[in-house]
Structure formats: C-alpha cells, structure tokens
C-alpha cells in the first residue's frame, strides 16, 4: 500500500477513536441538558395568582394581605369576562331551540376551558377534584390554554399520500354576531391582568407533598421514599459486602471453592434487574413474608442483593490497593492477623471502600425494576420511619415512569416529570461526582 494512504488510514483511525469519545460526551450532554433545563422549569417559572392562592390555601405559605390585594386587582377584568358570559347566556335564552342547541355544546366547551384558565366560574358547582378548583397556576400553560381557546384545531386530510396537516380556525368565527364574539379579543388582551404572572422560585417543589396526584404540589414523598430505599439497601449490603471482601482478599485460599464463590459474585452482578424484582416478590414477599405486601423493607432487601456484588468488588479493590508494607509492618509488631485487618488495613482502605459504597448508593437510588413488585406505589403520602417495615412508598424512579407513561394527564404535568428526573439525576450524579473526587484524592495520597 502507498505510504500516503497508510498515513491517511492511520490519521483516520485516530479521528474515529476521538470521534467516538466525543460522541459519548455529546450523548451525555444531549440527555442531560434538556432534562436539566426542563427540570429547572419545575422550580423556577412564571407563577400566576392561582399558584399563590393555591400555595396559601393548601400549604399556608405566602402573605395573605398581598394575595388579597392582587385578587382584588384581577377582579374587574375577570368580572368583565363573566359579564360577557352572562350576556351570551341571556342571548341564548331568546334563540330558536335549534340554534340554541347548536351553540350550547360549543358554549360549554368555552366555559370548560375558561374554568381551566381562571378557576371555577360563577354559577358552576364547586368541583370535588382539587385540579378543577384552581385555574392555571403556570403562565406558559395559561398561554397554551389561551391559544386553544382562541383557535379551533383542525386537521387537513385532503392529500391522502401525506400525513394530515394541522391548521387553526379562530373560535370567534363560531360565535360571530353574538355577544360572546367579543370575549376572545378581550381575553387575549387582558389575560395577563387576570392572572398576574410573576417569576417564582418554588422551592416547595422539593419539600411539599403532592396534591391531587401530582397535578399540584411537590415531590417530597418520592424523594423521601428513594432515600429510605437506598439507605435501607446500604444498611444490609455495605457490612455484608465489606466482610465478604475481607474474606476474599485476606483469608480465601486459591481453591475450587473460592473460585465458585467468585463466579457466584459475577453471576449475581449480571442478573437482569427485573429478575431481582421477580425474586424479591417470590422470596421476600410470597415465601418468607417480611411484610404482607409491598414494603420498603422488601424493596431494600431486594436492592441490597442487587448492589452487593458491586460493593464486594469495590471493597476488594480498595483493600488490595493498600501497600503490602503496611500489613507487614503491623504483623512484624506482633499484632494478630485480625487486629492488623481492623486497625491497619481497613482504615487505609476506608476511603476506597466508601467510594464504592457511594456509587452503589447511587445505583440503588436510581434503579426501578427491582422495586416495581416489592416496594413502589404510584400514589401515596410520605411514610414515617416506623412504617418502613409494613408500608410501600412512592419513589422517584418509579414515579417518573408512572407519571410519564400511565398518568391520566401525563401531557399536562411534564414539568413535574422533568423536575423528578432532574432531582433523581442530581442525586445520582452528585453521589458519583463525590465518589470521583474522593478517588482522585486517594490516588494523590497514595502517590505521596
């Protein structure tokens, strides 16, 4: 082959390698950045007066006087809307029955959308569900709703070869010539004065309980559930893992039995996470019955056996990284093997062991499949520490799935889902970051 071609091949080989690394970094950014920006939206957004009303009524947060003043500010504009509605209602009474029927369903639709925007309208019954008791709490949602109210969405199927095209028709056309026709322009011009959007930091998103299945409120129950499950798993797995690692590194002889134990360890590491879930259900709940049905305890135990191999491996590596001289010096001073392990080797290996522990904690917090059948519920309040033996809990990982795929209003609470994903990713990545930093410090220290 020509030398030039060989050089080109060599260069392109390097380029391919670097590109693949860049591609991985890009993939990380592509996944993390939208989640991050979307998740911020759950905490920092333009909150309307409805948001402040809700906060005051449900959580007792906010300044009552200011809120009442703002409500009074919005009253005249809202009353104008209600006046137009009343005027149209009166007008409908005078119509022919056929014409009235024609308008009635369209009018009902308008009223329904208006109540989503501004809260219950005068003359409506007080709704039972909390989600209908307040109007739009977020300004960007209000703007979407306003658009839906102003325009009717239609689909154009005229070209059978292409997908249907969407187009909009002003809703005012449906009511042309009636009293209601003026409503739409008025809404468009004055919606801001009716809702008074303000930039809001809603830290309560992290610490409030959820209201009406996450339509409003925060995600504290999920955060707490994740915390209980992950810490519970660590309580079981960490001591077991470290002791097993001590056995493997200091006591195990190089024989068939040990190699079987090691094989078992890597087999356990390779078991698909959903199979852990099946095992947890079949063993912890159906066979030894640690609880009557799903519980935090059963979930923690299942997660514990899942992260056990990781902890063992990390602890083994940390112990093996301790310089041999430490051990020899201690033995030469006459201490027993066990004493050497406890007082010399373990303290030296501790940062490394903790690094492995932190990474496993992150894995336990993020894992979903093992807790589906053993610990997670979709809707639930926060549970007390005493309930962990008997009660299931909501958890971030499971509820992200549940809200994104199974929630009845999944499209309307995207901000809550993003917020949850951001919370989960932040927890896991912060844990990993601290592990990485800790490890960097250890390697610096070992180098001297």
């Amino acid at each position: 082959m020509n030398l030039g071609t060989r050089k080109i091949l060599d260069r392109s080989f390097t380029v391919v390698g670097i590109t693949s690394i860049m591609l991985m970094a890009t993939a990380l950014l592509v996944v993390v950045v939208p989640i991050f920006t979307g998740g911020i939206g759950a905490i920092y957004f333009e909150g309307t007066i409805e948001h402040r009303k809700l906060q005051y009524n449900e959580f007792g947060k906010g300044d009552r006087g200011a809120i009442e003043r703002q409500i009074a500010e919005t009253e005249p504009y809202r009353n104008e809307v209600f006046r137009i509605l009343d005027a149209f209602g009166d007008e409908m009474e005078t119509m022919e029955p056929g014409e009235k029927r024609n308008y009635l369903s369209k009018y009902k639709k308008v009223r329904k959308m208006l109540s989503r925007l501004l809260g219950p309208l005068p003359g409506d019954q007080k709704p039972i569900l909390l989600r209908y008791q307040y109007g739009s709490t977020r300004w960007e949602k209000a703007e979407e709703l306003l658009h839906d109210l102003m325009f009717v969405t239609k689909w154009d199927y005229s070209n059978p070869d292409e997908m249907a095209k969407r187009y909009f028709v002003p809703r005012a056309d449906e009511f042309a010539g009636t009293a209601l026709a003026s409503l739409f322009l008025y809404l468009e011009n004055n919606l801001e004065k009716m809702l008074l959007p303000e930039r809001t930091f809603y830290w309560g998103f992290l610490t409030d309980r959820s209201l009406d299945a996450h339509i409003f409120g925060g995600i504290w129950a999920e955060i707490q559930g994740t915390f209980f499950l992950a810490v519970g798993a660590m309580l079981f797995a960490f001591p077991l893992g470290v002791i097993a690692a001590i056995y493997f590194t200091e006591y195990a002889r190089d024989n068939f039995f040990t190699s079987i134990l090691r094989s078992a360890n890597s087999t356990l590491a390779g078991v698909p996470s959903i199979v852990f879930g099946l095992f947890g259900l079949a063993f912890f709940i159906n066979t030894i019955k640690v609880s009557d049905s799903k519980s935090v305890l059963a979930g923690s135990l299942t997660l514990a056996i899942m992260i056990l191999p990781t902890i063992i491996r990390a602890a083994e590596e940390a112990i093996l990284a301790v310089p041999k001289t430490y051990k020899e010096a201690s033995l030469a001073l006459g201490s027993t093997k066990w004493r050497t392990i406890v007082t010399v080797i373990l303290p030296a290996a501790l940062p490394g062991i903790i690094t492995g522990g932190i990474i496993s904690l992150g894995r336990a917090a993020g894992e979903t499949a093992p807790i589906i059948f053993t610990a997670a519920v979709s809707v639930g309040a926060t549970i007390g520490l005493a309930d962990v033996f008997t009660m299931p809990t909501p958890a971030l990982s499971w509820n992200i799935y549940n809200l994104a795929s199974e929630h009845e209003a999944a499209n309307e609470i995207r901000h809550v889902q993003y917020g949850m994903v951001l919370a989960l990713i932040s927890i896991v990545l912060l844990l990993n970051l601290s592990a990485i930093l800790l490890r960097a410090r250890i390697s610096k220290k070992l180098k001297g």
Partner: protein
Amino acid sequence: MAETTLVGGKKSEAFVLSPEKLRRQRIAKFIGEGFLLTVASFVAIVVLFIFYFVAVDAIPFFQQRGFEEFFTSTGWYPADDPGEFGALAIIYGSGMVTIGSALIAVPLGISAAICLSDVLPFSIRQYAKPVIEMLAAIPSVAYGFFALVIFAPLLQNHGGPILMWAWWLIAGPFVLLAVVVAGDLLTSRQTDESRRKTMRTMLTGVLGVIAVVFLYWVGKTLNAIQILSGTNALNVSLILSFMALPTIVSVSEDSLQAVGRELREGSYALGATRAETLVRTVLPAASSGILAAVILGIMRAIGETMVVWMASGNSSHIPDPWYNYLDSIRTLTATIAGDMGEADQVTGSARYHVLFAMGLLLLVFSFISNLVSERIVIRQRKILSGE
C-alpha cells in the same frame, strides 16, 4: 514463653500465652474465620436462591402449557380465557433490540476503548473517564424518560431528516476513505510510478463520484421515510447502546491495557503505523477480552427494563419485514414489568407463572453469557502471562 519484668517489678503478660489463652484464641480464630466464610458464601446462597425461586414459579407454567406454545407461537393474549402464551414475538423483540444496540455500541465502544488506551495522552484520558462513568451512572428510568418524552417525538416528527443526517455523518467519511484506499489498492500492481499516479487520481475520482451518488441516493431514500411512531425498536436500540457503552469501553480498555508494551514496540520496530499496530497486533491479542466486553455489554442491553418498557411501543408482534427497526416491538423484560401488575392478583394462574418463565429465560441467558465471558477473560490472562 518468658515473662517480661517491667519497671517497678510489675510483670507484663503481654507476650505470655497460657495454654488456656492459646486455646481460646484458636477457637476465636476458628469462629471468626467461619463467620467470614459464611458471609462470603452468602452471595453464592443468594444466587442459588434466585435460581430456585424463579424456577419454582416458572415450572408450573411449563407443566400447564408445555414448551411448544411458549417458544413457537406469536399469539400473546394472556388476559383472555383461555389465554394464549406465545412468546416468540417477545423473545424476537428482545433479540432485535439487543442486536440493534450491539451494532451501534460495539464499534463505537471498541474504538473509544482503543482511543482511551492508546491514542489519547494521559491528561485528556483523565477527563474522558468520568464522562463514561457518568454515562453509566444515569439511572435507566431517566434514559427511558428521555427516549419517551424527548427523543420519540423528535423521531416521529423529523425521522427522515434525522436518519439522513446520521447517514451522511457516519457513512460519509467511511465511504470516502474506502474510495481512497480502493483507488490505492487497485493501482498497486502498476509499477511505473508516474502512470500509477495518474491512474490512481482518475480511479479515485471516478469511484468518488460513484460514492457520492450512492451516498446521496441512500440519503434521499432515508429522508423520504416517515416514521409512524417514535416509540420503536430504533429508538430503544440507540438508547440501549449508550447504556451498554460504558461496560464495553471499560472492559475492553482493561483488556487492551493487559496487552503489554513489548508487543506494541515490536510492531512499531517493524515499521507499522499506529493504526496497523493496533489492528494487526494489539486487537488480535486482546480479542478475547474484547469479546468478553461485548458479551457483558449485550447482557446489559438484554436485561434492561425501563427504557424498553417506556419507549419500545410494547406491541407484541414480529415487525414486517422482519428487519424493520422503525416498528414497535415488545421485549421480555418489559412484559414482565408490565404484566405483573395485573397478573399479581391471580397468583397461581398461567398468566402469573409465564412471567417467571420469562424471568428464568433471562436468568439462564445471563448466567451462560456471564460464565462464557468469565472463562474467556481467565484464558486471556493465562495466555498473556505466558503460562
């Protein structure tokens, strides 16, 4: 043993072990080691328990329904009475996303591993490793959320252009490189230097035009594709490949590092370029370790639940045609996760046990591939250490 006399006539017993004490110490040591051994064997016991308890709940299904239907039928109607439990389409779906993700992750992962072990200087490598660790640390449900909420709509609305751009960016450079190499190889018989040069330029030019036309034609075809649903096998394969990547990269990098300097230096000394050294010498030496990495990565993809559950479309049928990655599919893991909620109330029914049968299938598969990869790694270590 002698007693030591300390200042003030006190006698220290520090180095004195009476037979009584010696015996006690020995017993303590025995008990202690026994305890350590018990804890260490705990993992093996857990593995046995997992096999036992999954199998115990899986066997009733095969007793009730036999093997034939499960492995050969595509009719999956577990809720009907009597239900149909044909898992062929589901097994096929699992295989499909696994192969799809391997096709993306294996070349990418191996080239990244080579880059990390041989190409990049140490200072940059330090920053590249945490990226890979972060990629591995992101919870699967977050990937699933990304696939469902962000990527699926994108694929559905702009599927054609995305495919076209991916084709240009990935295939473009490789095809052009192939043109240059082909031009060089085809003219290498020609001995006259100046004639060879003109021939090569012409040949490369002609091949280049053909290649560009080919690239353009395929790109145009891809651009015209309309993706009906963003939750499909392609979406899942892509996301799964990024989840399998960290495993593949780190295990194959270890294996590349294990190939010593001597082999590399020998190859350089014979005049090989870095690419030639890596492809002809290092990769063959590390091949078994890389194979183990690929197996481990594939296992990660086949056992993954949340991404496929959220973003695969969950429709139990074999795509038409069979290689259509733009069709929705359903996998074993997603079926277990999705159907257990309804089947749980009817414990003891075939509907409940069939999920354990699927779990057993996954478990056996992961066990075998784990065993194989472990054997491979051990063998490589033996060969490289010259035993």
